[in-house]
């Protein structure tokens, strides 16, 4: 029995549809990330699970029980808010103790449990301080300890790292996963940062405009995304318009706008079908022949250089070279680009065009 289940859940605010017919199953112990651009309905989703919002249609089940009519405080979930929400009038220890106190746990428990979780996030020495004296990262750790101390088995994290500096985010990411895995908790982590999602999750649920687009492990979402939106949203990719020339079991041949014919993974296509090729920058190589393009810009990315080139078809492609090789290129150079067939995926061309299909806002 899945620990958390949503069946046909929809949520409307007046005329605005925030969530549309969501079916979702989370198993016990899973770390699931709900990923998507702003406004896709991800926060609405976990709020319905928490009980902060009631669904307009459908059922929310926790532990097999229908949560209709069950108030927030009885759902046994822990929630970490985007903007932290530590009680400003209580010090760190009192904040973390709130859960056990509110549940009227025994004296013993009230004393030991908070200290235990504060120790877990390495902030025991901040016990007596007030939230305003802590940094953003520290506040978020206290919020985590507080949610954990309430004893909940399910943890809902609402963009817990979005308000933090890039560097602090990176450090805290690993901590979140490590601690929750050690405790054997089930986690639903909402974020708009695909890099974050890939690093921490067992499974990613990608949402767009109130619907679930695709759900899979991070690796599968990256290597073999089933939807064009996924291919573009997770990681970076080059998208090229084309028409199928030949389709077989081993490969698909696609003619691009400038006439060059490139290979890609096999799929169920017929010659003449309008398609889109997706190939990631790290898979594009400079070759002797292939797609002809002109170097437009070069960016230093630290351990590699990202080169942007414009093909005759006016497609813009990005590809990467190791830093020392960067000297071999200049803006305006003509290059030929190619890729291995396995690294290029083919999708049917969306009726409204590529831009519309991958649009974020």
């Amino acid at each position: 029995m899945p620990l958390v289940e949503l069946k046909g859940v929809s949520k409307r605010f007046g005329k605005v549809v925030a969530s549309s017919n969501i079916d979702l199953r989370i198993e016990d112990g899973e770390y699931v990330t709900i990923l998507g651009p702003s406004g896709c309905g991800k926060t609405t989703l976990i709020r319905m699970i928490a009980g902060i919002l009631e669904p307009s249609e459908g059922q929310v089940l926790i532990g097999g029980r229908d949560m209709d009519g069950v108030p927030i405080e009885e759902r046994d979930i822990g929630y970490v808010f985007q903007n932290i929400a530590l009680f400003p009038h209580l010090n760190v220890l009192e904040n973390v103790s709130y859960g056990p106190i509110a549940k009227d746990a025994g004296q013993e428990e009230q004393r030991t449990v908070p200290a235990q979780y504060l120790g877990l996030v390495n902030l025991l020495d901040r016990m007596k301080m007030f939230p305003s004296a802590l940094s953003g990262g520290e506040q978020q750790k206290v919020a985590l300890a507080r949610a954990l101390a309430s004893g909940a088995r399910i943890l809902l994290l609402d963009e817990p790292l979005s308000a933090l500096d890039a560097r602090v985010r990176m450090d805290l990411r690993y901590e979140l996963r490590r601690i929750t895995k050690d405790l054997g908790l089930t986690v639903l982590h909402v974020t708009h940062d695909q890099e974050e999602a890939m690093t921490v999750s067992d499974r990613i649920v990608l949402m767009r405009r109130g619907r679930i687009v695709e759900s899979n492990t991070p690796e599968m979402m990256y290597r073999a995304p089933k939807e064009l939106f996924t291919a573009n949203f997770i990681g970076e990719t080059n998208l090229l318009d084309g028409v199928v020339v030949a389709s077989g079991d081993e490969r698909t041949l696609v003619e691009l706008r400038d006439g060059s014919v490139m290979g890609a993974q096999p799929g169920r296509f017929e010659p003449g079908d309008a398609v889109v090729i997706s190939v990631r920058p790290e898979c594009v190589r400079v070759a002797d022949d292939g797609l002809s393009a002109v170097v437009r810009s070069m960016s230093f990315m630290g351990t590699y250089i990202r080169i942007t080139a414009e093909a005759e078809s006016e497609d813009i492609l990005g590809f990467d070279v190791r830093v020392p090789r960067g000297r071999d290129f200049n803006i305006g150079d003509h290059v030929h680009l190619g890729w291995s067939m396995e690294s290029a995926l083919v999708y049917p061309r969306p009726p409204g065009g590529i831009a519309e299909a991958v649009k974020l806002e």
Partner: protein
Amino acid sequence: MGSGDGLLEFVSGKGFRKGWTTFNIAFFLFFIILPTVFILTYAVTDWSEIRDHVLNDPATMDLIIGAVVVSFEIAAIVTVIDFMAGLPLAWMMARKEFRGKQFLDTLIDMPLAVPTAALGFSAAIFWAATPNPPPFSLAVISSPMVLVILLHVVFSYPYMVRSLTAILGGIDETYETAGRTLGASRLTAVRTITLPLFRAGLVTGAILCFARSLSETGGTIIALATLYGRRMVEGDFHTGPTLIGLWKDASVSDASLLPALSFVSILLILLALVLLLVLKLVIMRVRLPMRKVWPTPEKLLSRGLFPKLKDSSALLFLFLMVLVPSFFIFTYVLTGTPSQADWGPFADALVTSFVIASVVTLIDLVMGIPLALYIAKNRSGKLAQLLDVLVNVPLIVPTAALGFSLGLFWSNFDPNASVPMVLIILAHIAFTYPLVVRNVVGAVEGIDPAFEETARTLGATPLQSFRRVLFPMIKSSILAGAIMAFTRSLGETGATLAVVASANTAPVYIVNLVNQQSYYLAAMACIVLIIISYMFMLLLRRFTREEVV
């Protein structure tokens, strides 16, 4: 280029701005603060008079102490009642969405639109057990103290609810939700999280409520006069302000009452300021029980019938104790016996009131907005902080005492009070000016300074940045303050009477009618005044609703 630009350059210059700010502050201190507290100097200058005629006269002392104590008792009781009845309503307004919320919003503010004189009369004929009670009235109250309490509850109610709503609105509901996700029932979360965060706001609400009751003169006089069926005399039940009103009236012919008058005023002012300071300190220090949690009973109270009961009683209270008494006067007109009336003098009085209110509001705006801007933008400066506190003083001082003090102050410059109108205007400015300033300060503080800063870097001078960027964003708050000032001036009775006993404004006219027992005429006059005030209130709502930010 040209002289116009030259003028603009000059006005934008640092020197001019400093000069203008200094002028504003000076105006505030000299025309508003100084006259308001002037009476306090009498404790020093006329000490011997006061000692002989008042402190050594047991009868007078009894009268004074009694009245002052009663005023404070009433204010305290009213504050508590208004808090308990107002909190559930403020909660509904701040946290919940429901049909008819806008309508409820308007209803809560209604008592503000009714001039104090009219409201005093209306509430009195509803509640008071008079010899010939009009139909539909309850007419059960014969105790003057209870009547005054019931009346003050109505006056102070909007202040309490508005303050509480504003504060609650400012506390992020996320804190409460966070508490609930940790397992606390709604009631527990409110009690342990929201209420402590709420404290500072609670103080403001309580102070405004308390001060309003302490300060209330005109309506109280009329209510008591209605109850007794005649003018008030010394032997009657008195609050501090009604005593001032009585003696001010009588002092026109009997100057020996002046020391007594001064003493009451001084006492009221000092005690009010002291008590409010104490209140602020106490509320901020009290530690609400947090460790103690009673999950089971609090859970029960959080759900099911209890919240609904709480909300309906709050609404019932609003209706029965606040709205009906305020507007009862309308039924009186329908059921009362008409009498011949000469509307001429009333029309004159009405025009006078309007002229005064307009002039007052204009001056408030011109002098108040710059001061508000100064306070809001110099938050860290000592002077600005001091001014921020001082601005509230005229609101706290009882209007009768204020009027009296003001009258005394200006009589030093103009012993014959040759132009009473000017005096009345000055008095009205004193207690309406803070309304404008507080509104504008609140509005400006809510605006991110980044807007104006961005405008400056885009090339706008401070003046241009105010005119093009800040002003449009606070326009509706300015308007709200202006309309509040206008209606307050229109309805003010006590201060008017206290500063110039023979004043001829509309509310004073009504007071005289009541004293003469021309109840029907008084009622008609009240209604006219109410309708006009109410139209202005509607204007206020329209403009504040258009707030874009």
